[in-house]
């Protein structure tokens, strides 16, 4: 499956450098896959905690950890959830640990080693602005 790097508007005008992102759907939110920045330096896969209740994911009693991200102290709650990626012809789902974080400073999720990279062969072609992912069954 191929994902184009995505550019976003810069607040001051112009555009931000296109970045490698993957759209990952949480079970229960199939119609709204969450844009996740591919973060090869991250151990965890993390998303905003506000998505959890929308997908019916229960976080009370979950294992939590405190950490800093983007200079902000936050708390992540762990849930094992079913995730799906899809393109026009293929779809792949897998179970993965996702940390739902509050507060969450970023406008996207982060796809890291656990939860994402462990499950795919990822080829990044930054020159041409895309990444290919191949599920590792």
């Amino acid at each position, binding site marked *: 499956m191929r994902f184009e*790097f995505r550019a976003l508007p810069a607040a001051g005008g112009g555009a931000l450098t296109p*970045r490698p992102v993957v759209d990952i759907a949480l079970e229960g939110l199939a119609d709204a896959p969450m844009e996740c920045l591919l973060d090869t330096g991250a151990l965890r896969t993390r998303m905003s905690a506000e998505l959890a209740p929308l997908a019916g994911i229960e976080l009370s009693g979950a294992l939590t950890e405190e950490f800093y991200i983007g200079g902000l102290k936050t708390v992540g709650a762990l849930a094992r959830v079913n995730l799906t990626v899809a393109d026009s012809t293929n779809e792949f789902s897998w179970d993965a640990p996702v940390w739902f974080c509050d507060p969450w400073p970023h406008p996207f999720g982060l796809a890291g080693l656990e939860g994402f990279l462990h499950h795919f062969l990822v080829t990044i072609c930054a020159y*041409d602005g895309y990444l290919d992912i191949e599920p590792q069954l």
Partner: protein
Amino acid sequence: MTIMTVSGHRYDLDSRSVEAALQGQLPEPIHEHFVVINGRRWPPKQVLALVTGLDRADFTTHQARRALTRLGFTAARAASPRGHHPVPLSAALPQPAVSGTAGRPESLVEALRPFVGLWVAVRGEEVLVAAPSAKEVVAWLAQHRQRAQSMFRVPDSGPAITGAAPQ
């Protein structure tokens, strides 16, 4: 103020009263025609119904479009009309890229620019909906039986994204 008659009722309208009537509302899916108000695309019938309180069955799209253009709003026809029914996954997602050339990133950038700071759902280069919260975006998708390619918040500052990756 512009005096106009819609479905036998007379209204005094201006662009400000129209913009005020849309406060707190989200645009419904664009099927074919749209008007541009406050940088967003709206179905003409939705707008006129909100402004007048009339039932949408009381007037046509063309009447709504004509009324709104008289008030100074731009009206146009969508390049690729969307059906009201759910878009199949195979139709909803863009075709795989030909190396490095597929898509026009600048088009999505410009489409997103009015929505800085808001959550959006996009499909290809089209912004389906923009709202202050992910909850509202998800609710809109469910209500209108739409499937997005991606959902995210359009960053309103550099630090919102630069903490996660080198700039």
